[in-house]
């Protein structure tokens, strides 16, 4: 695997292994992965169920620290970090987006979004301001005081992304972010992630949907706990990226569009390039 000198690697995995069970029942969910991820990459991890995608993501997100091998985050071996320090890194550097949104059901939207800020130690006023701002950016300003169950799936996932981003993390880990969404909502979510990528964030996304890999700058497929294929290429600095945001035309009215255009956009994702042509 080639290494670049220019941008320092954010994540370096060396001979990473993760096993479940003991003795005869021992099973390696991750069986020796070497991986270097540069700053500003948008990585899509694909692979069949049970190949260790989610396990890998959990390890990258410091949720699972009982691993063999070496995991270096920003040049620091994770092994040497205390639990407290790891929690701190999760708070400052990493944003999680889950397939099932994982909003706290008894908190309203703005409280959900300001949840990560609590552990950063911000005052309630500062939290509300920041959360409100990011919700506006995601066109959810009017939904601030809704409860999660009052939102559509797409809206919930956008709240979840807003929550993942409110701490301004540099790494975003997304575990099948569109897995529970219809194709139109998926498209919107992917646009948001793509936008973040443009801004220079590192995004690592696990997905089952091959169509979504078009958004990624690098696609990794896994099989039985090992990396099967990797379309590694040198990442381009974000502002010179060849990729252009796909939906600036749609974005301002995305809120209403969610429902209004569902019918027309039934096949949006599959025929995305075509739609783009029509739009332009």
């Amino acid at each position, binding site marked *: 695997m080639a290494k670049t000198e220019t941008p320092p690697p954010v994540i370096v995995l060396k001979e990473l292994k993760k096993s479940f069970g003991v003795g005869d029942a021992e099973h390696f969910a991750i069986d020796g992965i070497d991986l270097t991820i540069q700053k500003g990459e948008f990585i899509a991890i694909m692979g069949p169920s049970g190949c260790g995608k989610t396990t890998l993501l959990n390890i990258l997100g410091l*949720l699972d620290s009982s691993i063999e091998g070496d995991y270096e985050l920003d040049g620091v071996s994770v092994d040497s970090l205390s*639990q*407290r320090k790891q929690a*701190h890194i999760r*708070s400052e550097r990493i944003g999680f987006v889950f397939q*099932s949104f994982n909003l706290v059901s008894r908190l309203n939207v703005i409280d959900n979004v300001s949840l990560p800020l609590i*552990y*950063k*130690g911000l005052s309630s006023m500062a939290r509300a301001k920041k959360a409100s701002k990011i919700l506006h950016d995601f066109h959810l300003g009017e939904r601030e005081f809704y409860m999660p169950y009052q939102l559509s799936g797409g809206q919930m996932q956008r709240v979840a992304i807003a929550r993942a981003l409110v701490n301004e993390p540099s790494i975003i880990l997304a575990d099948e972010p569109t897995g529970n969404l219809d194709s139109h909502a998926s498209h919107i979510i992917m646009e948001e992630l793509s936008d973040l990528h443009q801004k220079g964030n590192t995004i690592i996304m696990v997905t089952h949907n091959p169509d979504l890999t078009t958004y990624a700058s690098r696609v990794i497929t896994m099989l039985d706990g090992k990396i099967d294929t990797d379309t590694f290429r040198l990442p381009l600095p974000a502002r010179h990226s060849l990729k252009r945001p796909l939906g600036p035309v749609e974005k301002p009215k995305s809120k209403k569009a969610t429902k209004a255009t569902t019918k027309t956009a039934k096949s949006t994702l599959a025929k995305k390039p075509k739609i783009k042509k029509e739009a332009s």
Partner: protein
Amino acid sequence: MRILLANHIHNARQSIKSNRLRSLLTMVGITIGVASITTILALSAGANTIVRSQVDALGGNITIVRPGAVSNSSLDELSQLTTPTQFEASSLTALDIKSIQALPHVTAVAPLMVLGGTVTGDSEASPRTPIVATTPDLELVNNIGISEGQFLDDTLNPMTAVIGPQLSIDIFGTEHSIGKTVHIKGASFTIIGVLKRQNNPVNYNNVDFDSAVFIALGAGTNLNQGSLHLQQINVQSDSVEHLESVITDINKALLKTHFGEVDFSVLSGAQIAKPSSQLFIAIAGVSVAIAAISLIVGGVGIMNIMLVSVAERTREIGIRKALGASNGDIVAQFIIESLALSVGGGVGGFMLGYALAFIISTFLTFDPIITWEIVGTAIGISVVIGTLFGIYPAIRAARKDPIAALRQYE
């Protein structure tokens, strides 16, 4: 850290609100425990001050002489409570009365000889009716009020008696019993006075004056086969300043008449109240220990509910951890929630306890007392219970594996 604390409190409030009934029932356990402890403490503090305030009310110039040396162990003081039925022979004699009377600054000396025996008027009194043989000075020393007639007088016929109002009602059916004849241990006495109602069944004389009959010391000695048996000698000095010197003088004088044997004790102020205070403290201690059991039950209830709450919110814990909460944050969140339950129950219990104490005190002769110690005890107990029984669920919450927690219900 302060901001986090405010947030945890906000969180706890929200969680308690969303499970209103469950939280309320959990709090009731603590409320009952704290209420019973508060009631007991408030009432016993009230009872404690009775004897003390009686001594103070008499002007602080009273000292009493009792047979038997003072013991330093508080447990002994419990058994040292002199009762009219105590069997120990008294070491105090008529000579002691005389030598105390002769001391300077002593204005009144009232020996108390309490006898048991049948007291009969129109009907027979309870067999435990105290017959108090004393001198006229008792009126001065104890500031006894007379509602009708007069107190004992040396110049009168020795076969005269003064009667307490309650005893008068018990045996004659009226408080106006002057001139009637009362039979004490077979001898007939004419009633020359009725005392004012004192309503002090617990006092340093260990005699309820309301239901006692008073006769002269000489007559009492005769009823007791001619032997004098003094429970106590009450001494009044002419001023508070001279009390110290009077006590010293009494000690010296009695030591001389008792040939250097310290078989008596001279008590003043708080010392007089001590044996009865000790008794109340012991009673209160035992009751509090029993009430503490209900607190433990309440604490187990809190622990139970917190475990349920942790199980219910496993997913939330996972989310919070993924978003950057450290184990400490999770522990703090759940401990504060259990503290909110126990302190809420404790405050409720404290108020309920005082309400109860006041209701109970309407049937008693003393009022409950609110002291900072009791407030502190009630709040302290609830904090301790909340922390103690909240710690295990909180640690369990913090130890949850975030991945497993996030996978729940998926």
